[in-house]
């Protein structure tokens, strides 16, 4: 096999490159004449205009064909996520540490709860109706104002001791902290198959067998059925998720516990890969 000797010195290469950029003999700029550059630019301009047009047209058609009330597919959201307030995340998930005797360690947590519950004041909920019967609130017609559907009222006072009204510190200084548990919204999801789903918190890990002494609000820690199903943002613009508050009554101080709060009810499943689907896990340590 023979050589293709293309060894050039650096200056030769530079000269070659300069000649490529502007060749004075042929009047070529980067290998093309100026008019040629204009044409090719026009061509690409036209090409990309057409491509963008096609893209825009596709997206326009997509938007036109999509249902404004509910998504076409819901196979990805089978079971609702569950979230906890206050939510402080450590390296590996939720981690709530505080010191009873040190205001600064829990004031942030309490503020979080107050902020969160601000959406549940009677004023914030004034658009929603009062519901009492514990059955699914099925609406086939648009009975609300502006062609919407009605939503049930959930106010913070339903959380009684954990409402922040009677006890603005949510029991944190006493070492009996309140946690608020919220279930994510899923359109047309009917949890519990006729029985209201309820929250149940237990220790996990080494303390697994130990009973967890806690109060649940509203009573029994249930999400009343009349908050379901959810009809989507467009149909129920004022909908707010029902909440359940847990007040831990007897947490041993200075020990880190791992606690899981599960929502129990038919249709609510757990996923090994997802720590927040159907349940919420967190670490809790109360120091003094």
């Amino acid at each position: 096999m023979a050589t293709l000797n293309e060894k050039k010195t650096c200056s030769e290469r530079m000269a070659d490159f300069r000649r490529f950029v502007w060749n004075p003999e042929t009047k070529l700029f980067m290998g093309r004449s100026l008019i040629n550059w204009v044409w090719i630019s026009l061509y690409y301009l036209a090409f990309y205009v057409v491509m963008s047009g096609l893209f825009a047209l596709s997206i326009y058609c997509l938007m036109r064909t999509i249902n404004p009330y509910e998504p076409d597919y819901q196979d990805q959201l089978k079971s609702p996520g569950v979230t906890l307030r206050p939510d402080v995340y450590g390296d590996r998930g939720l981690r709530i540490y505080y010191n009873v005797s040190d205001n600064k360690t829990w004031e942030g947590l309490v503020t979080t709860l107050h902020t969160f519950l601000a959406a549940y004041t009677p004023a914030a909920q004034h658009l929603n109706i009062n519901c009492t019967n514990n059955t699914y609130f099925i609406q086939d017609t648009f009975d609300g104002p502006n062609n919407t559907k009605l939503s049930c009222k959930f106010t913070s006072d339903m959380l009684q001791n954990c409402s922040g009204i009677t006890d603005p510190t949510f029991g944190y200084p006493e070492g009996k902290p309140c946690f608020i548990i919220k279930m994510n919204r899923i359109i047309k999801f009917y949890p519990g198959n006729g029985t209201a789903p309820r929250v149940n918190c237990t220790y996990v890990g080494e303390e697994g067998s130990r009973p967890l002494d806690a109060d649940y609000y509203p009573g029994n820690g249930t999400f009343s059925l009349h908050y379901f199903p959810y009809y989507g943002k467009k149909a129920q613009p004022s909908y707010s998720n029902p909440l359940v508050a847990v007040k831990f009554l007897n947490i041993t101080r200075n020990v880190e516990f791992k606690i899981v709060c599960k929502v129990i009810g038919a249709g609510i499943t757990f996923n090994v890969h997802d720590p927040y689907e159907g349940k919420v896990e967190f670490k809790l340590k109360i120091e003094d």
Partner: protein
Amino acid sequence: MFPDPGSLGNKNSSSLMLCSLLSTSELEMKYGTSIDKGLSSARAAEILARDGPNALTPPKATPEIVKFLKQMIGGFSILLWIGAGFSWISFGIHNYKEASRSHQLYLGVVLALVVILTGIFAYYQEAKSTNIMASFSKMIPQVRATVDNSSLTGESEPQSRSCDFTHENPLETRNIAFYSTTCVEGTATGIVINTGDRTIIGRIASLASGVGNEKTPIAIEIEHFVYLVAGVAISIGVLFFIISVSMRYKILDSIIFLIGIIVANVPEGLLATVTVSLSLTAKRMAKKNCLVKNLEAVETLGSTSIICSDKTGTLTQNRMTVAHLWFDNQIYSADTSEDQTTQPFDQSSPTWTALSKIVTLCNRAEFRPGQENLPIMKRVVVGDASETALLKFSEVILGDVMSIRAQNRKVAEIPFNSTNKFQLSIHETDDPQDKRFLLVMKGAPERILERCSTIMINGKEEPLDSEKAEAFQTAYMELGGMGERVLGFCHLYLPENEFPETFQFDTDSMNFPTSNLCFVGLLSMIDPPRSTVPDAVSKCRSAGIKVIMVTGDHPITAKAIAKSVGIISATSETVEDIAKRLNIPVEQVNRREATAAVVNGMELKDMSSEQLDEILRNHTEIVFARTSPQQKLIIVEGCQRQGAVVAVTGDGVNDSPALKKADIGIAMGIAGSDAAKNAADMVLLDDNFASIVTGVEEGRLIFDNLKKTIAYTLTKNIAELCPFLIYIIASIPMPIGTITILFIDLGTDIIPSVALAYEKAESDIMNRRPRNKRRDRLVNQQLAVYSYLQIGIMQSVGAFVTYFTVYAEQGFLPSTLLGVRVNWENNAINDFEDSYGQQWTHYQRMYLQWTGYTAFFVSITIQQVADLIIRKTRRNSIFRQGLFRNKVIWVGIFSQIGIALILTYGLGHVTALNFTPLR
């Protein structure tokens, strides 16, 4: 010991020396030996310890491990290693700082695996191609040159050896015999003066290995392509690294983007695909008798612009065959094709009967027994080339020659010798009534004519007058002018009264007449061109390839063969032809007018390289005659100075420097020596020139098909790259994952891109000029721009439409996606709201993101199917090329879809791979 210390003389050369300038006793003293007793065993052992055994040092081979490591870090591998390194670093930092991001670890492992696997694959392919070669040399029986120096100097005639110092050049002098040559006949005693690498052949072998392995054109093209793509990858990567840093992304994230951009830009599977395509072509060529030693040589052959071909055996059949006959004052031509079974010329004349009898009887050659079932042309004959030709010729026409000879018992014989220049035998006749003896003779025509007083015309003896002698001369000149070897035939029926049945013939005293014979006819023989060669030469011509004949033969023979195969076309003339036509001296002819040239080796010797260049430039049809193999190297270098890609054929040991020097050296599989085969890049199993042309066609085809493969592979790079760029700029959820990209590059796309190697040639493949290695690059601007900026952009648009559709149908409308990246990827947000008010946990979002990857992947895959069909042709219309002619393409398409289905639905639950089942 040689008078000229500057010549090859002193330090080197021969292993066996018959005598030298020095007298025998001086020699004995110099080498401490004795002609009668040889070296003492102690002295022999001493010399053996000093010089080593009498064997050639094998060429230095690259250690296997180095070859392997080269595959591991060559090409794109280094980029991927960098990517893997970054992944591990970022994994390490993440792991230390916060929650483990094991997919960085996976990515690094996968990248490393990709490099290692493709490296192993390429290494295996290379090793496999070498293995073909090794087994090959055992397969083909080595035909040892039966002539003395042919393996060394290419002289086809045996050279005699004596004690006379005849020439200053050790290669020419008669008193030295060389290592590797064989003794045909006779005995001689000599003194060994050199062994092993210090012999002439050893020096040639080391010279050949010294010429060195430079890069093949395709290797240069691939390198150019790798630089190009790596340049694009690195510059886009660095550009977006800077952009992302200035957009206040974390450095670590920016590094991850960088990896993604590099992985998206590097066509990981391409180098493996190229190797596979080349080895597929190599296999196809092996079926067509071109054995390729070096995979890359496949393409080199395609870009060949000059072929320097040997004559004997390559262009010709390598056997003497009767081409013309002259009797009854007329020239007849005989069939010279490879598989003659009959001869068409007029055989009714009684002169022919007489001539055929002489041809049959005055011949010592015989068929080896036990070949009755073979076609006559394939049978092995004991005897020299001319006799063999005559034997086969008469066997074809008359049938069983041996029985004819048996019926005409031979009573006396004088074999051919160089003083007499004739051969004579005396036979009984096969007619029992006729008791006369028949004396038959053949030999050099002028010598035979001298001995004749009559000539047979139409079966009748007529006196040989000057007019008939003139006719003989004309015929002899004409046949000789065609480059043919002419023999004359005559006979005499001995009178019964002088030579009764009991007469004892004595060949020493010649007690029988050897003059006043009856001249019967002439036969002329030539080594005829192979029947496929003229066609192949004209193919070369239309493909813009210049064919140069380089032969050791006589110029007249060389020119005749060149004309008959079309190397010199019918209409073109040499300077000498023009001079003859215009009847002016050669010097006055305008050299530019002559398109053809026949250059004699002796002229070549005195030429400067400028003069040679001028010949190569100005003449399109060139024949080099009487050249030594050493001059072949000069010719090859001359051609390369013209910027040509030169293919050279060769068989002898000292062809090896030329074979090495050439862009592609082609050794003869049957006649070639091992040294030639080692030096060559390709071996022609059938020694046939036409096979080279087939190889050229395959080489051009693979270049075209590689272009298609690369265009196909590059297209999707844009569709893989755009997601990263838009992700960084528009902060949308990641459209495609790095691992998913690897699955496209190394999964769905591999088989289709190999399938393009099976694409049939587009119609004009052999009507184009050879590719100009400086201008016609494998990856040129058009290809890159077309793939990247047109088809690639279209693919990206298509894939993004799919992406937005999938998200929209799951609840995230395009407007919500823009700028959402930070919250979307935040582990701590587990109630992320979509356009419909639904809330998603982090994992649910990630799962949706993987669904997006899968959709993007499927979209690219489907668009690649369309791309594959686009890429089937470059010049022809797809309908002209045919959708179904290349079945492998369909295998590719189905495999692509099949792999995509398996990945999406079969592996949809393996989280590490980030595939989800689509609905």
